[in-house]
């Protein structure tokens, strides 16, 4: 098996996780900027974090033969402080042209507040002006449906070309509207919230599978860095062909991410599936 992990917070994971992912057939990792579990008190903290994402983590991943890519932004959980947010937004262009950077992400909403919305609009503006891909985080649990609608409105109003944005963490009540808007949709595999492997495969079977991808979004919380290959195995148990699995966990993310000229995947040990 070969697969791309399109959403993983590897700064929070151990070397053993890299070994396990490489062993399972991971040929590329994409790491969006996110919340560290506490609010950073100045833009300097983000400067160091962006260095970690663009200098340190790629070297760590390379030791296991995996190309590492990054998305840059201020996570919506830290958008309530508009002063800090503007300082961080001013930093982003300095890092955007680094070789492993894919675009702006994971931007979005958390509690659907006015300040979060304002900072989301500012991020989208940067992406549109610089013609960068966008990765969008949708809110958790009871806030997801409302937040998804607000996010789709922002993308539409900013004139984002739908194929240049992936809206992540979709579930059964949001996947259709994201795909109908023409965007790509990400299904996140979590042990408790978001989607289980079984529910993810249900959505793949029912909706436009060619614009869906699976990710583990593994971080410092309850999550599994091998969630994507485990779901691939479950697809095989359901009777899906090896080619259909390969298209979902490798081909789809490759098509979206290859819009960035510098996107790279490793040679797979077993060759093409």
């Amino acid at each position, binding site marked *: 098996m070969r697969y791309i992990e399109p959403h993983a917070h590897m700064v929070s994971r151990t070397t053993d996780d890299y070994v396990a992912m490489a062993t399972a057939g991971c040929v590329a990792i994409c790491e969006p900027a996110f*919340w560290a579990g506490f609010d950073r008190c100045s833009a300097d903290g983000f400067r160091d974090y962006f260095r970690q994402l663009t200098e340190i983590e790629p070297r760590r991943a390379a030791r296991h033969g995996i190309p590492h890519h990054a998305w840059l932004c201020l996570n919506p*959980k830290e*958008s*309530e402080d508009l002063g800090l947010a503007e300082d961080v937004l001013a930093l982003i262009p300095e890092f955007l042209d680094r070789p492993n950077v894919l675009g702006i992400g994971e931007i979005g909403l*958390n*509690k*659907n*507040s*006015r*300040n*979060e*919305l304002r900072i989301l609009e500012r991020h989208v503006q940067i992406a549109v002006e610089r013609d960068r891909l966008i990765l969008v985080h949708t*809110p*958790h*649990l*009871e*806030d*997801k*449906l*409302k937040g998804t*609608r*607000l996010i789709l409105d922002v993308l539409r109003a900013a004139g984002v070309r739908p194929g240049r944005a992936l809206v992540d963490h979709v*579930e*059964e*009540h949001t996947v259709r509207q994201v795909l109908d808007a023409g965007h790509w949709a990400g299904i996140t595999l979590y042990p408790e919230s978001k989607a289980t492997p*079984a*529910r993810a*495969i*249900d959505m793949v*079977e029912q909706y436009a599978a060619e614009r869906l991808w699976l990710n583990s979004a593994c971080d410092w919380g309850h999550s599994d860095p091998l969630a994507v290959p485990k779901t691939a195995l479950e697809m095989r*148990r*359901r*009777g*899906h062909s090896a080619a259909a699995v390969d298209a979902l966990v490798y081909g789809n993310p490759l098509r979206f991410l290859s819009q960035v000229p510098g996107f790279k995947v490793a040679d797979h040990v077993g060759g093409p599936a």
Partner: protein
Amino acid sequence: MSKPQEPWRRRDALTDLYYMDARARVLDLAAFLDRMDRTSGSDDHRLRSLRAALVTLADGQPDRARRILESWSDPTVEPAAKAEGKGATGAWPGL
């Protein structure tokens, strides 16, 4: 000759694959509700939303997962004036 049906559209195949997992989850939910019955106090919005979802589970209509998620969601449309905290509870507190 008609094309054989994909395995994931055959009820017997999916029953073999998922029945034991679903059985365990039903028993876990039943035991959770029994556990709540042995406590004092009243239901908060999370328990109310869970009990309401049981009606949807048994209504025989399609798209249960989507409809339950929608029923637990914030139905308002205007952005919040301010983010109160960072977390979510699993069901809209207004329920």
